[in-house]
C-alpha cells in the first residue's frame, strides 16, 4: 500500500512523463503480475501477484493523469493537499462567480434569459482553466529540472485554482 509508484515503474520521480513509455512499462509489468498469468503458482505467490497487480493498476491510473500525478507527488513530498483556500483564487474570478450565482438563481426561477450569460461565463472559465493548465505544464518542467520545494508549492496553488475553476465549469453545465 505504501509502494512508491514511480519506483514501481522503475522511474525517477518526475512530473512531465512520457506517456508512451509509461504505457509500455505498464503493459510489460502487467504481463508479469496479472493474476491470470500467475494462476498456476502456489497460493502465496498468487496472493503476492494479486497485490502487485492491484498496486500496478492503481499506480498507472495515478501517474498517467497529470493532475493525479501531481497530487500524488505533492503528497509524497509531504505537502498537505487538503481543502483549497480562497487565496489561490484570482480576485477577478470572484466577481465572475458572484454574477454567475445570480444568473443561476434566475435560471432556477425559470428565467431562461440568463442562459446566454451562463454560457459566456462557461467559455471564460474554460479559457482560464486552459491558461492554468499551461502554467502547470511549465511548472512541471521547472520541477523536473531542479527539484525545488518552491515550485511544488506553486503547483499546489495552481492545482487548487484549477479545482476551483473546474467546480465552476461543472456548475455552468446546465441543460439547455
Amino acid at each position, binding site marked *: *500500500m505504501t509502494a512508491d509508484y514511480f519506483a514501481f515503474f522503475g522511474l525517477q520521480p518526475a512530473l512531465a512523463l512520457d506517456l508512451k513509455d509509461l*504505457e509500455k512499462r505498464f*503493459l510489460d509489468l*502487467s*504481463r508479469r503480475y*496479472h*493474476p*491470470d*498469468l500467475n*494462476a*498456476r503458482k502456489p497460493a502465496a505467490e498468487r496472493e503476492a501477484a*494479486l497485490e502487485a*497487480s*492491484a*498496486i500496478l*493498476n*492503481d499506480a*498507472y*491510473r495515478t501517474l498517467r493523469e497529470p493532475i493525479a500525478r501531481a497530487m500524488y507527488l505533492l503528497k509524497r513530498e509531504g505537502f498537505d493537499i487538503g481543502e483549497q483556500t480562497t487565496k489561490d483564487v484570482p480576485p477577478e474570478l470572484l466577481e465572475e462567480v458572484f454574477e454567475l450565482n445570480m444568473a443561476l438563481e434566475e435560471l432556477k426561477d425559470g428565467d431562461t434569459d440568463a442562459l446566454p450569460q451562463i454560457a459566456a461565463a462557461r467559455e471564460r472559465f474554460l479559457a482560464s482553466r486552459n491558461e492554468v493548465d499551461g502554467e502547470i505544464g511549465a511548472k512541471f518542467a521547472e520541477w523536473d529540472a531542479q527539484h525545488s520545494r518552491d515550485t511544488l508549492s506553486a503547483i499546489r496553488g495552481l492545482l487548487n485554482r484549477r479545482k476551483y475553476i473546474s467546480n465552476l465549469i461543472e456548475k455552468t453545465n446546465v441543460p439547455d
Partner: protein
Amino acid sequence: MFQIEFGENDDKVVGIDLGTTNSLVAWMNLTKPEVLPGEDGDKLVPSVVSLTTDGAIIAGNAARKELIDHPDRTIYSVKRLMGRGVADVQDELKLFPFRIAEGSDSVIQVRLGERTFTPPEVSAFVLKQLKKNAEAALGAPVTKAVITVPAYFNDAQRQATRDAGRIAGLEVLRLVNEPTAAALAYGLDKRKEGIIAVYDLGGGTFDISILRLHDGIFEVLATNGDTHLGGDDIDNRLMRIALEDIQSEWKEDISHSGEAVQTLRRDVIAAKEALSFAPVVHLKFSWNGKSYDRELTRELFEGLIKDIVDRTLGPCRDCMKDAGVTPEQIDEVVMVGGSTRIPLVRSAVEVLFRARPHTELNPDEVVALGAAVQAGILSGTVENQLLLDVTPLSLGIEMYGGVVSKLIHRNSTIPASAGEVFTTGVDGQTNVLIHVLQGERELAKDCRSLARFDLKGIPPMPAGMARIEVRFLIDANGILSVTAKDARTGQEQSIEVKPSYGLTDEQVEAMIEASIEHAQEDLDAAQVAMARVDADGILAAVAKAQRDAAYDGLDGEERACIEAAIREVQAVYHSDDHEKIREKIDLLNEVTRGLAETMMNTAVRGALRGTHV
C-alpha cells in the same frame, strides 16, 4: 514432484457461458476453442430447471419440455434474479412467472413445486448439467471452470454466480466479462493494435465494452450497459400484443394459464426468430381447439422494438465518451448475443459506430468460446494473450449525511485497490460500521448497497484517536474484499461482513454440503475417476523418467523401491476407493522425489545455458 509437474496439467479447465436463456460449455481443443455438445447433440443447454413430480431435479432441454406441462415446477431466466433482493425484482415479477416464496428477505427464494431454492442453487443445477455434458464429451472429470458474467454485473451478482459454481462442485478460476470473452474468441489479437467495440445484446442483459488491443493484451477502456435489457423484453412486447389480440378474438383471457402462456411464448419466440430472415411471418398459436394466426411484418416488428434498440445506444455513447474515443477511431465492432441477429439491431450498430459489425461467429456461441480461451490463458495452454478488464461501477463508502465518497472509480482496471483510514467518533467506541456501496449517484440511497463491514475490537480510547486502515480490493473477478489493520499496532483488525444481498459464506457451505449429500455416489465416482487420472499422469511421468539418464544413475535399491511403488499404484488402480489410490500415488511420488529433482536441476541448467547463449 511428478505429481505437481504432470498431474495438474491433466486438469481440464472449461469455459462456461451461463446465460439468461441458454448456457454453453466449451474447452480449448489444442489451439482452438470448441463448444462441447450435450448427450442429445445440442450445444445450447436451455437455462431452465424443473423439479419433476417424483422429486428429481432436471435441467436443460429436458426441463424446457416441462415448462409447458409443469410450469409451476419449472423456472427459466433465473439469471435475472441473481444477486438481487425481493424489492429489486418487482418489475420482473410482472413479466416473468417467478414464484417467490414467502419470507425471502435479502436472498430471494423461488418455489418449484413443494421445494424452494435460491437463484444460485437454481443456476448450479444448470452448471451441473454443463459439467456432466463436458465430462461425458471429454471422458474426464471437470472440476475447474471459467464462468462468464455480464460486464455490467455488480458485486452481488458476481458473488451469486461464483456461489452457483461452488454449489455445482466447480472451482471457479475466473469470472470473465461476456463482451471481453467475445473479443478473445474472435482472435482479434491477430491485429497488433486497434480499438474494438463489443456490442452484446443477450436474452436479459445488454453490455457494451470498448477495448484497446496492444500486441496480445486486450485492455478494456470502458464498459457500460443495462442488466435488465434484452431479447426477453422484445418477447414481452410481442406477448402483450398477442395476448390482447387473443383476448379480443376469443373473448377469453388466457394469461392466467401458465401452460397457455408458455406455449404462446414459445410460438412468439419462433416468429421473432423467423423475422430476422423473412420480411413477413405468421404467428400461429393453438389452444384448447381454438387457433390464432397473425401476420407480422418486419416493418411492424421494427416499429414495436425501436425504443428497446434505442435504449442500447445511450450506453454505447457513454461508453465511447468514458473510453475517450470517437466512432471514427473504432476499428472493429463485434456482435454478441442472439438478439444481434435482428436486422434492426445490426443496422443501428452500423450507423452508430460507422463500421460493419463482425458476425462471422455464431453470436450464441462466441462468449463460451471466449471463456474457453480465458481458461486456456489461466491453465497456460494459450500464450501471449491477456485480458485487462475494468470494474463497471464505482465503489464507495457512505459518509455522514448519506453522501457517498468514491474510493475506486468505474472503468478502473482490475485488480484495483484503495485505502481509507477510519477513526472513532465517540470516546471508548470499540467498533466502526462501514457501509460499502456501488454506483455512480451521489447519495447512498441511490446506490447499490453491497455490504456492511463491522470493524470490531478497537481498544477503547478517546474519540478520534483510533486509526484503522481499511483496504478495499477488487480482484480480477470484479469481486470486493476488505481487510483492516490497526495503524498504531499493525495488527489485523477483525471484520464482520453482512452482505446486503446474497448468501453468506456459511450459507454457501451449507448448500454445498446439501448438494454433496444428495449426490454422494456421484461425488465418489468423480473422485475415483480423478484419482485414476492422476494415477495415469504419474505412471506415465515415471515411465518416461525411467528412460532418462538420471534413472540409470540410481542404485539398485532405489530402483527396486520405485518399481515396487509402481506396482502398488497399479494394484489399487481399479478399486473404488479413491483414498487408497491417492495414498499409493503419494507413495510413488515420495520415492521418486529425488529422481525428479535431479532431472529438474539438469533441465534448469540446460534452460539457463540456453538463455545465456
